[in-house]
């Protein structure tokens, strides 16, 4: 037995409401409402959050997206700021809407959620991919640059030095990208960066004697 639920005029709910059956909102709800059944938002009611149900009847005000798998009806006096999605949508004269309105016959309950999730996901994905690529590129460079075996630790240091500016300034990204094309100049640049960046700890260099001499020659030039 499903008993009708009511949120009365003086009642405020802060949090999410979910369940089966019908829900009548006469008061205020700050949170998402997810029901299988009918949701009625009465004249003086206010909802701040997304509402999804089989049937939604709105006479009050809602700030949030609405999605109904069957009917979404905005009665006179309704004020909605948010997107509407439903198999059938009715907007009566006197109802105010600001948002995207879309009728969709097929399973609409899942779609709006997917759409809303997809939008931030896409925007989030773009920046996420870019930094990863930036990471990958410098990470790949040190590997070939590791030709002189003693230098790997330095190469790593320089690599991290490369990465940091790359992260903050996208433009320099282009110049390092050109480096791997000419491996020889890349080798020269690595030690130069080490000097400027790792001025204080030169003792690290003498630890590996044979290669160090070669490097000293480079530096001398």
């Amino acid at each position, binding site marked *: *037995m*499903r*008993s*009708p*639920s*009511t*949120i*009365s*005029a*003086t*009642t*405020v*709910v*802060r*949090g*999410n*409401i*979910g*369940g*089966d*059956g019908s*829900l009548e909102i006469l*008061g205020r709800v700050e*949170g998402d409402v997810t029901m299988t059944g009918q949701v009625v938002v009465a004249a003086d009611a206010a909802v701040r959050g997304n509402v999804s149900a089989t049937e939604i009847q709105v006479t009050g005000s809602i700030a949030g997206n609405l999605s109904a798998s069957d009917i979404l009806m905005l009665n006179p006096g309704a004020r909605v700021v948010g997107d509407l999605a439903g198999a059938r949508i009715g907007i009566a004269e006197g109802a105010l809407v600001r948002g995207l309105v879309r009728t969709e016959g097929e399973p609409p309950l899942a779609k709006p959620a997917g759409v809303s999730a997809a939008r931030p996901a896409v925007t989030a994905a773009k920046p996420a991919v870019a930094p990863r690529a930036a990471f990958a590129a410098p990470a790949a460079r040190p590997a070939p640059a590791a030709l002189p075996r003693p230098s790997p630790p330095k190469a790593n240091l320089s690599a991290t030095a490369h990465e940091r500016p790359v992260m903050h300034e996208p433009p320099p990204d282009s110049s390092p990208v050109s480096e791997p094309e000419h491996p020889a100049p890349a080798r020269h640049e690595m030690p130069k960066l080490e000097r400027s960046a790792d001025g204080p700890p030169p003792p690290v260099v003498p630890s590996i004697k044979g290669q160090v001499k070669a490097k000293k020659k480079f530096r001398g030039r």
Partner: protein
Amino acid sequence: MAGTVIGEELTIEGEITSDEEVVIQGTVRGSLSSTDTIQILSGAVVEADVTAASLSVAGAVTGNVTATDRVDLQAGGRLIGDVRSARLTIADGASFKGNVDMDV
């Protein structure tokens, strides 16, 4: 005016405040307060601190309870938490675990 009714199939996670009678048949987690009566019916699950003028419990409540007037723990009711109220009745068949503070 029936006030607020949280039906059997309904779950609220968050804060409920009201100036009218609140009847809980479903599930509430968070906090629940009313300046009027709160009834927690049989089958209801409340995991929240409850504040009301008068409270009757026939369902399961986990949380501290404060009532300005009275608390009635009815047969079949289950209350785990401290009670602060001017008056308290515990019916035969109710379960209760907690401290009572009756403002003596």
